[in-house]
């Protein structure tokens, strides 16, 4: 399991070494998944390119009330969990960051790594999808930008080609009278992987009717999943318990879960139904509070 380690000091240097190493190499972010895969012999690499020393990729979050939040792809979950702007405007992202592993791992693990690892249960993905976030992908050939949901193509697979890395994640500014929420169910409250998770973002008009919403499901499909029928059930409505429950039913229908050691498909669907109804109401309540300010 020996491998060489490159430690580029600039982004062009990193992209150049990634381009020349190709698929014999992997970009190393927090290392909490990659190093394990290498140690277990699941993947063999001639080298890893440690991109933590590249300025601008690590730990930087910037907030602008009109443009929203940007953060380096190597921002750790602990930084996200503690960031005042995330906590104030993007509850669902802060809530998801808090349930990742434990404090020590959250000090290492990065949001870009979580996305790139492409686990269906990745905790950061449903909130970022619900918030309409985009991600910049850079290579020696240039940069492209895509929605978070577009960069994951299957369990453990992304659309990135060898030599490409995530650089920046952008989250739009929350709309007026909008709110968002996240909930995950796992048997243990820490150091566990979600059986199912749901993130929702809801925007209300002055009468309290839903004008826009996004609902994203986690751990119940091979790729990130928006529950569009469940969203449509909310548009134009006041979000009562009955409306939220109906939305939950549609989200459960949209889920494509598998049965595995963590839970059966039917169980996961039932969880999605409950979590969706719950987070939709919570997001709507937050939207109403935002409107009242």
């Amino acid at each position, binding site marked *: 399991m020996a491998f*060489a380690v490159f430690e580029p000091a600039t982004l062009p240097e990193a992209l150049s070494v990634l381009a020349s190493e190709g698929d014999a190499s992997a970009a190393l972010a927090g290392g909490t998944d990659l190093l394990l895969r290498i140690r277990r012999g699941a993947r063999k690499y001639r080298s890893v390119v440690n991109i933590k020393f590249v300025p601008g990729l690590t730990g930087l979050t910037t907030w602008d009330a009109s443009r929203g939040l940007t953060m380096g792809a190597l921002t750790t979950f602990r930084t996200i969990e503690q960031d005042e702007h995330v906590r104030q405007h993007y509850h669902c992202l802060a809530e998801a960051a808090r349930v990742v592993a434990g404090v020590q791992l959250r000090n290492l693990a990065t949001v870009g790594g979580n996305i790139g690892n492409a686990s269906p249960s990745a905790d950061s993905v449903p909130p970022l999808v619900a918030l309409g976030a985009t991600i910049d992908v850079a290579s020696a050939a240039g940069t492209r930008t895509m929605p978070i949901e577009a960069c994951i193509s299957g369990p453990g697979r992304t659309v990135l080609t060898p030599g490409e890395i995530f650089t920046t994640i952008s989250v739009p500014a929350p709309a007026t009278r909008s709110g968002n929420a996240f909930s995950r169910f796992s048997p243990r409250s820490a150091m566990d992987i979600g059986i199912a998770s749901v993130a929702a973002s809801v925007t209300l008009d002055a009468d309290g009717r839903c004008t826009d919403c996004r609902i994203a499901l986690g751990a119940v499909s091979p790729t990130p999943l928006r529950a569009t029928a469940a969203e449509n059930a909310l548009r134009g409505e006041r979000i009562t318990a009955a409306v939220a429950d109906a939305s939950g039913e549609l989200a459960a229908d949209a889920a494509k879960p598998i049965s595995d050691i963590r839970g059966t498909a039917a169980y996961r669907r039932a969880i999605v139904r409950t979590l969706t109804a719950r987070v939709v109401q919570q997001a709507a309540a937050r939207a109403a509070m935002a409107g009242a300010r």
Partner: protein
Amino acid sequence: MTREYRLTVNGKTSVVTTEPHQSLLDTLRERLGLTGSKKGCDEGECASCTVLLDGVPVNSCLVLVGDAAGKSITTIEGVAGSEGPHPLQRAFVELGGVQCGYCTPGMIVSSCALLCEQPDPTDEEIKFYLAGNICRCTGYNKITAAVRSAAETMRAAEVPAPTRRTA
């Protein structure tokens, strides 16, 4: 191919020659003889290898040695002062927070970081912060009690926590 790394552990700087794929944990244990940090799972599940990097608790089994170079590394060996055991160490012993002892270095190093961030934590805050530290003996209640007791002692005596966050 080996490289030289300059590591500052518990205030003392050493130059270590090792391979870049080595973990910080293996480097501490096998090159520097600091075996207080335990190699429980070597995959980030147990946190018995917790050390502080610039005051921030991390699983040293998942940190490459190069990522620790140039940072201030605090291990369990650096927690006690010249005047004897740290209040956290005393409290763990006195209140039965130690049984087999394997998780204890990670528990204490993590608790140091907690008490730096939050000198007067509630039980819930202690449990949340130590959720990544696995103990198979105590049932955790005595660990929570020890941290709470040490926090009281430290606030009363204004004992500085061993490493302040420098960032």
